[in-house]
């Protein structure tokens, strides 16, 4: 598949204004994105995601390395490279609140050098697709947050660029709007052969939309993997153990010392321990804890795992996944 984005060994260091201390935000990140691919860029707060996204958009200059958008170096030929990329960086804040929905779409098209006539049909299509037709003459100021967010994404799609960058597209939205937006994005992904990079903390969005995820932590890439592979990898290490009696206090202490993220549920008739193991051999240590006072084990089952759990596992124990 053709590469549309090539990120080669980028570094970014900031100098703190007060202390003059140097902080490395991005440390030697490299990856490629292929045409038509939907990539999830994930990581905890402060991991270096935003800096990476801004460097891809040409809004931030890297100290080292290069980024090619459709073969064009974003630092050397920024304006030409920007013809291939559009972005939603701050969601609803990316809009002019004193302009109407239609006026916003037309203004941003004009800012890319397109005429109102040229984009007329496309504007109508997007208004329909994003369920904004009835609101087209309303000021953005008066729209709900969800509608504003939808409009911001519609603005990014309007330019017909090869690459679309969505930074936190569902942040702060209620469940219903978040679901609607996810469905719209799924349609866009399915119908249009666009390359989309999504940075999000909303794991259902990532799990449903992305083909591949890159997880960044402390400025470096810790995982660059297909979503299904990540899920499969962790699924084999997630267990639910049903016990015939509660654990003793000593056992509980040992359990939480060894598996701090485990879920321990004491119920009337049954006690359940849910745990994601870093290594498959850790199962023996777990059994050892139960063996200590010969606790009755009713069953041991593999449990299903969602991408949120995968993400937490990776961020907490990145080196183990890297080794794998």
């Amino acid at each position, binding site marked *: 598949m053709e590469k549309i984005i090539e990120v080669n060994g980028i570094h*970014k260091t*900031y*100098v703190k204004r007060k202390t003059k201390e140097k902080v490395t935000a991005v440390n030697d990140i490299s990856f490629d994105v292929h045409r038509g691919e939907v990539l999830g860029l994930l990581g905890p707060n402060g991991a270096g995601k935003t*800096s990476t996204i*801004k460097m891809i*958009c*040409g*809004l*931030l*200059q890297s100290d080292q390395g290069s980024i090619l958008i459709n073969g064009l170096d974003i630092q050397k030929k920024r*304006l*030409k490279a*920007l*013809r291939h*990329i*559009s*972005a939603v*960086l*701050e969601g609803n*804040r*990316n*809009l*002019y*609140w*004193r*302009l109407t929905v239609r*006026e916003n779409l*037309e*203004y*941003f*098209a*004009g*800012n*890319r*050098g*397109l*005429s*109102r006539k*040229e984009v007329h049909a496309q504007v109508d299509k997007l208004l329909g697709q994003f369920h904004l037709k009835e609101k087209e003459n309303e000021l953005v100021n008066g729209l709900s947050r969800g509608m504003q967010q939808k409009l911001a994404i519609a603005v990014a799609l309007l330019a017909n660029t090869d690459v679309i960058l969505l930074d936190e597209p569902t942040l702060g939205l209620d469940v219903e709007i978040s679901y609607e937006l996810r469905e719209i994005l799924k349609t866009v992904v399915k119908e249009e052969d666009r390359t989309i990079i999504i940075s999000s903390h909303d794991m259902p969005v990532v799990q449903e939309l992305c083909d591949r995820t890159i997880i960044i932590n402390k400025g470096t890439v810790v995982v660059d993997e297909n979503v299904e592979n990540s899920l499969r990898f962790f699924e084999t290490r997630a267990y639910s153990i049903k016990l015939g009696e509660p654990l003793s206090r000593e056992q509980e202490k040992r359990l939480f010392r060894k598996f701090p993220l485990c879920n321990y549920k004491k119920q009337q008739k049954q006690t359940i321990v849910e745990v994601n193991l870093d290594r498959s051999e850790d199962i023996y240590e777990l059994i050892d804890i139960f063996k200590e006072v010969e606790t009755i084990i009713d069953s041991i089952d593999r449990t299903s795992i969602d991408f949120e759990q995968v993400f937490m596992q990776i961020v907490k124990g990145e080196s183990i996944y890297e080794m794998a």
Partner: protein
Amino acid sequence: MRWLNLLKANFRKEYIEMKRYFPNTLALLVTFYIIFLAAFFGIVFIGDPASFEANVQYSIVSVVFWSLTMLTMNFIGFSVVTEAMRGTLEQLYMSPMGVWKIMLTRIIGQFALQSILMIILLFAAMGTSGQWLNLNPMTTIPIILITMVSMVGVSFMIAGLAIIVKQIQAFLQIFQFVLMGLVFIPLSVAPILAFAPFVKGVNLVRTVMIENLTLSEIAFSDVTILLLNSFIYFILGLIVFHRCEKIAMKKGLLGQY
């Protein structure tokens, strides 16, 4: 064609926003009119009766020009600060046209719209004082347009500063008084000010309106100085703006406010 589309989009945006913020626009016009009234009554009550007419005519042109320079020269700076506050500045930087072109087309749109306001102010001032100036549009319009180029240059310098520092409102408030000084002080008193931006142009327009000159009656050297002054300030403005953009991109200041 892309330039034209950009200009149309930004002119339309400025027009729509001016309409939607009409009370603001009106308040601005009234404020400038009140400033003129203060200058006019100052001349009536404490001015020299022998030079009453000349003084009033001088103050009419000066107040109108001060308003125009203030609105034009602060415009891009204010635009950058407002866009950074709204969160749209980075979005503008995603345009393949380049922000300097967006800002240039915006200022052209603003200038066209502000000119209407200034014409209203000019006629209100002339009507109130009973002093009718020679407008000579065939002479004054080309001079104003050339002068405008230097104002845009300074505006870009201020905008460059705004991209890096952002909180420049206090500076802009003080700057209004600097502009007032530059507009009101005649070149005959301080000839060195011919090197400052727009002063030569304002002086020429004032002379044309008061002395009823035509374009051919203006000295060639004056036109040359005006052209050079405008060209140099415009280029300097763009250089400063691009330099500041580079610094902001290196330090990651574009999205900050």
